[in-house]
């Protein structure tokens, strides 16, 4: 019998943390503004994954609702950013 929450804490969450750090480097360096927008979108998507893993560790299924809202906000923010970036290039 294996301990599932220990596996999540010691293997899955560190991998997700390393990938979040790598994406933060791109968010800091990104030469264009669109690079930063993509990095932000990716951060939010991985945040949804972290929320799913965390709800399994703590056995609180309520956290899944938070993931739904975060996914919605991430989609809307990317759409808004790309709309205004495109509008800025129009004039």
């Amino acid at each position, binding site marked *: 019998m294996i301990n599932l929450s220990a596996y*999540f804490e010691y293997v899955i969450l560190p991998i997700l943390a390393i*990938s*979040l750090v790598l994406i933060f480097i791109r968010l800091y360096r990104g030469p264009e503004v669109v690079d930063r927008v993509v990095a932000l*979108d990716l951060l939010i998507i991985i945040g949804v994954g972290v929320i799913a*893993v965390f709800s399994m560790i703590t056995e609180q299924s309520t956290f899944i609702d938070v993931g739904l809202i975060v996914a919605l906000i991430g989609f809307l923010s990317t759409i808004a950013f*790309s709309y205004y970036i495109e509008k800025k290039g129009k004039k």
Partner: protein
Amino acid sequence: MIEWIIIIVSTIGAAAILIASIGIIRMPDFYLRLSVTVKAATLGCGLLLICAAIYFPQISVTTKAIAIMFFLVLTAPVSAHMIGRAAYFINAPMWKGSVRDDLEGKYDRERHRLKSSQEIQNEKKDI
């Protein structure tokens, strides 16, 4: 049995997310970064949500997890297309090793409209 399924699926998901983050930091160009990351990150996050759907026995939680997965799969290509289009309009630089640009000359930069191949042929005839 179910623990092993959850472990295998969550490991594949975490590995896909790690590959996406390595891709966003190593790729030389905005368009390559977009093409690498959006697919891999959506796959990884969807697999983690499948884990949550298997893990919780309540049917309501499973439904919610599958709804989030469906929403992500539905919206990630839309947002990726919109940000790629915006990047093409603000002239994000391409990698120097890029071979071809299929959209070159097809976008109307004033009105932000894509011309059809018929219109382009007509313009060539007029010239």
